[in-house]
């Protein structure tokens, strides 16, 4: 009987409960947050962490902890949607390039390679400046940036799958192109794409916060970690918790999702396991 290498499950075992916790907190923000994130209380402006306000209050007397919890909702929404946009676009381009090969492959992938060379934050900033500042546009802009990465990975895996005997069998059986792509190729590329999607998700959360920090993502009074850090900068000397607390939440979330991505890679990538 083949022995299970438990060592490779270590990172996922550690990070998965925390990933679930973050997702649960974000999806049940209304029930978890002790205060309304928009509720202004001028009597407690810039108050430090206390029993009532665990992470203090901001310049308008709003509870920082509650705003961080609602900020998680925004970050996770943007992360998921951006990854979905990138994944859909990337898989479409990657499979198309690998399946048809030749000029289609050359043109599509050369274009993807060039877009991939652009610094992500620069492209995101330019796209947001044009699309206009909103969460929806942030999802779209970040998603577009992810397309080349997913396309390159999908193409590489599809080319490996194409060399497998079962695909030759499918071609010999005379299955039409769309059936080969959807039934034979796509199910086999999902594993490695899942790993890439986890890493892309944490990067999307970082990018959304960076855009909001620059005033190009979600707009105040909407609670977003990026704009909370930015607003807090103005009060950093009197009330450092306004910037530091959402930054810690962002850092922790990105770190946990990156660990989860590494853990998934340990399990799903047999080359690394060896």
């Amino acid at each position: 009987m083949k022995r299970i290498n438990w060592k490779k499950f270590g990172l996922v075992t550690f990070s998965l409960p925390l990933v679930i916790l973050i997702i649960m907190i974000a999806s049940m923000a209304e029930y978890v947050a002790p205060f309304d994130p928009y509720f202004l209380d001028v009597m407690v402006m810039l108050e430090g962490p206390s029993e009532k306000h665990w992470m203090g209050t901001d310049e308008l007397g709003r509870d920082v902890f509650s705003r961080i919890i609602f900020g998680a909702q925004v970050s996770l929404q943007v992360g998921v949607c951006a990854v979905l946009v990138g994944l859909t676009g990337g898989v479409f381009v990657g499979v198309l390039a690998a399946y048809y090969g030749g000029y289609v492959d050359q043109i599509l992938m050369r274009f993807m390679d060039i877009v991939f060379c652009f610094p992500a934050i620069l492209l995101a900033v330019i796209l947001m400046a044009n699309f206009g500042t909103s969460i929806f546009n942030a999802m779209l802009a970040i998603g577009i940036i992810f397309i080349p990465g997913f396309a390159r990975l999908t193409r590489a895996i599809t080319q490996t799958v194409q060399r497998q005997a079962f695909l030759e069998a499918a071609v010999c059986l005379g299955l039409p192109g769309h059936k080969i792509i959807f039934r034979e190729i796509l199910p086999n590329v999902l594993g490695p794409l899942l790993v890439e999607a986890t890493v892309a998700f944490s990067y999307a959360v970082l990018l959304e916060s960076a855009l909001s920090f620059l005033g190009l993502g979600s707009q105040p009074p909407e609670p977003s970690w990026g704009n909370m850090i930015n607003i807090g900068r103005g009060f950093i000397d009197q009330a450092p918790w306004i910037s530091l607390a959402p930054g810690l939440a962002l850092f922790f979330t990105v770190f946990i999702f990156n660990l989860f991505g590494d853990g998934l890679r340990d399990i799903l990538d047999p080359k690394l396991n060896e």
Partner: protein
Amino acid sequence: MWKIIAGRLLSFVPTIIIASMILFLAVNVVPGSAARAVLGIQATPQAIKRFEHKHGLDRPLYIQYADWAGKAIKGDFGTSFQNSVAVGPEVAKRIPVTILLASLAFGIAILIAVPLGALAGMRHQKMSDGTITTLATLFGSTPNFWLATLLIYLFALKFGWFPTGGYVPFQDSVLGSLKSLCLPAISLGLVSSGLLIRIMRAAVIETMESNHIDTAISKGVGPRRLFFSHVLRNSIIPFLTVGAVEFGFLVGSVVIIEDVFRIPGIGSLVLVGIINRDYPVLLAASMAITLIVLLVNFLADLSAQLIDPRQVKNVRN
């Protein structure tokens, strides 16, 4: 060798052309937005038409691009919508600041990554390897703009060791210049070191598996000499050539860090272009950043090919 250089150069030129097209399209993706942005929402259709005609924005996009690209090759990036000042000289003035900041940050990242990555690679699959890899993930997960805020709070406001922002030109005071760039460079460098540690680790693991290391060990070479003369020497070249790509990404990250520290580089000019909806400024500054990134990638790729194509291929895989 010349064949490789010529081949790479031939593929570099179309890359720049396509990159400039993508950038031009990204900046002009919403038709008419520049006029509306500059003149305000209450601008009359006639005023918008006049503005567009004056700046040639009423022409088809491909003609606008051809016009812009033709002038850009000669160094003319147009004039600002806001103050009618030539954009080219302003960008040229800011490029050295950004390159200096990115170079300092890259230097810091290398100083962190080489010893840690080498240690992790030498102690592959041991506890210290796991600890360093986790540390690399920790560094890579840090939002650089938050780290910058944290550093300003601690080292500028609390201890008063560094300025909270601004830039002292290198020619005015070397020490002052380094002092003004220290915190921004740490903010960028520490985050970049996350990826570089992993690259260095992979390079060392690759070297450790090669035959010449086995030969050196069997000849009785001591651990210190084995590391410095055999492992480090053979790992550092693929590390630098692959890691140089990170320098390109570092240049891209200056957009946000220059804003936090109010450094007058190209990154902050991109934001000025966005805030004022000054598209000639935005286009020229973004193109300058993209060119630097592409050039660094090109040089890294070329040197990798020239030094040893096999080694770099292995590290990349």
